[in-house]
């Protein structure tokens, strides 16, 4: 091995200068790899001085020169750090011996820069936004992967000749040209809404940033841009705006429906105008609401093939509907319900549900108000009637007695007869009131309506003037019902009389009877909603003047009349109402001005065989029945209990004329204070039902307990059905009922029945 000492003697200054100046590290080794020479840069890289390195076994190089930094050779500094180097070798000879000149070029920084650039490039290629670079003339130099995809180019490979303008639709290119680039030049960057031209000419909305990169001459050398695809965001924004619109429409609809200061029709009319703005294409949308026979529509509404319909329901029954129609077909709708969005369907259903609710609320409210009115009036009427009845009874009884004691043809007799007749009229009036207030005691029985109607016809024909044609259509198979037949007659008469009054000149009146089966809860009757079932329907129809809605609403109110003063009490129809209700029936009225009226009475059919109904010849044939032949009541002992003194006196007089022995008590207590023996001697207890301290029923119970054989007659001008039922239920009282005011004959009848 040869060692070559460093030194200036024997070496050329030129070569030395070159070695020393080189930015690369140079190590010269002999054939065995021993260091014979090295330069300052090599000393730096290795962290050792030349003196330390000389004679060291450095090693030879086993990589081909052309590989550059690929072999990743590192040079190790004494302090443990290392630098990546590019190694080149040259074989030469020095002073006659072969040496290897090893050049070490530090490429550490270059490598790091390269790695960083690669990292940045991978980000640019991974981002879904477009990243592009153009020269100052707009020629496209670079487009990242996403950018190529957005504008429909191949993902990699050489870019075709493109100008930046080619990537945008005209309006966007113009914007960038006139606004974007100048601003970028001035301030360094610009941002704004723009668009790209996608494949098939599709416009892609983007948010675009333009950057200007100055060159060394101060002018723009490059322009770069980043564009973020806004399509999804814009679609989401549009969808959100639609949902908000739909919600606003729903809120508006709810508000309108809640306006209790407006009539329902008005609310619906206002509501219909609120709807179109909630739809996707408001200028093409029209709406209509139909309810009962009313219709509210926006100005241009027409039925078209592109229509949404939603029903308005009362219970399960459709009472109207709401429709939204497009005036022409729109292509840009989503898949789903034809030309409408699924959300629009939901909106319409929500609105129709709200309307259904409002309609129902309205109806119930009206019914409630009406029922309350009737209830109040009924109570008033009932109370009044009760008092009147008592008075009338007194008058009747005394007049009766006076009549009996007068010679038949005397003038006084005539006077008293007229008094008596007037009291009967009075009682008829009070009865009507009582019937209305449903405080009448009804004597119910099974009735075959066809037969009953037939029996009434002669009377009806007498009542109906010749100018009016009467038609009777009675289905012989109409079901049997249970009601008070004589009261029914009065009701029919009343309705017929009203119909006659309604027909001014000539006309037609129809009386029809048929079976009616209801499968759904009916709405629209004046007295509650009939439940499903079988009914007998009696209809009185006239071709008269008809009534406007304001009148129809009130006709059953007592004292309500359209007739002039003195021409009617206004009690007739209220009596009909009360009777129908008390008989568990329903009443329906249809009328319109100029179209006549029809009143329908529905009575529930009696379950079971119709053959059970008694044949008419067995029942009362006419309203004023002749009472059965008299059996003597003389010697009967009757205890009369009533808190009304006049009443007791009248009764005593009435009964004693028949030979009845009458005892009196003013109250239940007084009666019970009587001697035991005296009580046991009583045959019949005739007591008022409603008395201050003890009721007639209570008294009857107590006395019956003492004297089981006692017969009971309860009397009242105010007989409540409920008390009736309570009195008979499960007890052995078995009372007879006498409703005040009653005639002597009626009283005798009752006594006979009680003794039977």
């Amino acid at each position, binding site marked *: *091995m040869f060692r070559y000492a460093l030194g200036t003697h024997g070496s050329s200054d030129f070569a030395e200068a070159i070695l020393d100046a080189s930015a690369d590290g140079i190590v010269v080794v002999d054939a*065995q*790899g021993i260091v014979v020479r090295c330069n300052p840069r090599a000393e730096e890289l*290795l962290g050792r001085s030349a003196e330390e390195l000389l004679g060291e*076994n450095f090693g*030879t190089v*086993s*990589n081909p020169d052309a590989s550059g930094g690929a072999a990743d050779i590192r040079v*190790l500094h004494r302090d443990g750090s290392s630098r990546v180097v590019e190694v080149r070798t040259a074989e030469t000879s020095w002073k006659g011996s072969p040496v290897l000149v090893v050049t070490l070029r530090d490429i550490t920084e270059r490598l790091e820069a390269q790695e960083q650039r690669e990292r940045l490039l991978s980000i640019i290629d991974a981002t879904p936004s477009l990243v592009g670079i153009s020269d100052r003339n707009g020629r496209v130099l670079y487009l990242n992967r996403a950018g190529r995809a957005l504008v429909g180019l191949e993902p990699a490979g050489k870019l075709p000749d493109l100008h930046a303008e080619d990537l945008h639709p005209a309006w966007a290119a113009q914007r960038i040209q006139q606004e974007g680039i100048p601003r970028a030049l001035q301030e360094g960057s610009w941002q704004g809404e723009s668009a790209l031209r996608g494949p098939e000419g599709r416009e892609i909305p983007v948010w675009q940033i333009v950057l200007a990169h100055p060159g060394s001459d101060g002018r723009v050398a490059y322009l770069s841009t980043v564009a973020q695809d806004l399509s999804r965001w814009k679609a989401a924004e549009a969808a959100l705006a639609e949902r908000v619109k739909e919600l606003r429409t729903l809120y508006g609809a709810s508000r309108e429906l809640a306006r209790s200061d407006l009539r329902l029709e008005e609310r619906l009319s206002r509501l219909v105008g609120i709807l179109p703005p909630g739809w996707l294409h408001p200028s093409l949308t029209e709406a209509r609401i139909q309810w009962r026979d009313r219709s509210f529509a926006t100005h241009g509404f027409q039925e078209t093939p592109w229509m949404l319909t939603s029903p308005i329901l009362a219970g399960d029954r459709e009472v109207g509907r709401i429709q939204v129609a497009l005036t022409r077909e729109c292509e840009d709708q989503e898949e789903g319900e034809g030309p409408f969005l699924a959300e629009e369907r939901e909106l319409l259903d929500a609105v129709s549900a709200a309307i259904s609710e409002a309609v129902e609320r309205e109806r119930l409210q009206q019914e409630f108000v009406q029922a309350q009115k009737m209830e109040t009036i009924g109570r008033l009427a009932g109370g009044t009637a009760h008092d009147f009845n008592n008075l009338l009874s007194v008058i009747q009884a005394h007049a009766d007695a006076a009549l009996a004691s007068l010679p038949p043809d005397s003038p006084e007799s005539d006077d008293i007869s007229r008094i008596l007749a007037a009291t009967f009229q009075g009682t008829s009036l009070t009865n009507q009131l009582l019937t209305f207030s449903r405080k009448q005691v009804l004597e119910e029985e099974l009735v075959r309506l066809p037969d009953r109607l037939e029996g009434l016809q002669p009377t009806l024909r007498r009542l109906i003037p010749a100018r009016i044609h009467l038609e009777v259509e009675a289905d012989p198979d109409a079901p049997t019902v249970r009601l008070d037949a004589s009261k029914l007659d009065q009701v029919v008469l009343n309705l017929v009389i009203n119909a006659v009054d309604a027909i001014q000149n000539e006309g037609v009146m129809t009386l029809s009877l048929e079976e009616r089966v209801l499968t759904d809860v009916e709405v629209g009757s004046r007295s509650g909603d009939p439940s499903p079932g079988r009914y007998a329907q009696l209809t009185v129809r006239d071709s008269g003047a008809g009534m406007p809605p304001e009148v129809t609403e009130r006709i059953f109110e007592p004292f309500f009349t359209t007739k002039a003063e003195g021409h009617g009490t206004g009690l007739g129809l209220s009596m009909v109402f009360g009777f129908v209700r008390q008989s568990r029936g329903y009443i329906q009225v249809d009328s319109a001005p100029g179209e006549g009226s029809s009143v329908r009475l529905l009575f529930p059919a009696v379950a079971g065989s119709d053959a059970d109904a008694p044949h008419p010849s067995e029942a009362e044939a006419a309203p004023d029945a002749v009472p059965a032949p008299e059996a003597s009541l003389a010697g009967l002992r009757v205890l009369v209990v009533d808190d009304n003194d006049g009443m007791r006196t009248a009764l005593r007089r009435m009964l004693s004329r028949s030979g009845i022995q009458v005892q009196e008590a003013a109250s239940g207590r007084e009666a019970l204070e009587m001697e035991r023996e005296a009580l046991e001697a009583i045959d019949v207890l005739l007591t008022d039902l409603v008395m201050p301290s003890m009721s007639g029923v209570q008294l009857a119970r107590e006395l019956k307990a003492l004297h089981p054989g006692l017969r009971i007659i309860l009397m009242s001008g105010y007989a409540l059905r409920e008390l009736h039922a309570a009195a008979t239920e499960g007890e052995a009282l078995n009372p007879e009922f006498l409703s005040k005011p009653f005639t002597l004959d009626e009283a005798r009848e009752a006594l006979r029945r009680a003794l039977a």
Partner: protein
Amino acid sequence: MRPVRRPYDDRTSAGGGPSLPERWVFRLYTVGITPATETALKNLREICSERLAVEPEIQVVDLAREPELAVTHGIFAVPMVVRQAPPPVRKVIGDLSDRDRAMAGLEMGSL
């Protein structure tokens, strides 16, 4: 100076006497295990299987774990393959991809 070349086979000992099988030992120095390290290893094995009749012992020294060895063993660059035995000790820098240079450097070239 001309390099001294020694003939070698496993039956020849260093100076006369009964023949002992030769032991070949190489050391591969590296900083961490890199692709270059693996290439060097692969190339070394190929060279040995071509030029040697025996299996060599190859040690791998990771200077990342024992950096002080770089100084004590005189390792100036990595990857570095050192022929430890039989002498002479020769050092070759790189991944041995230039076979001729590699064999020359390790003095395993053809005679």
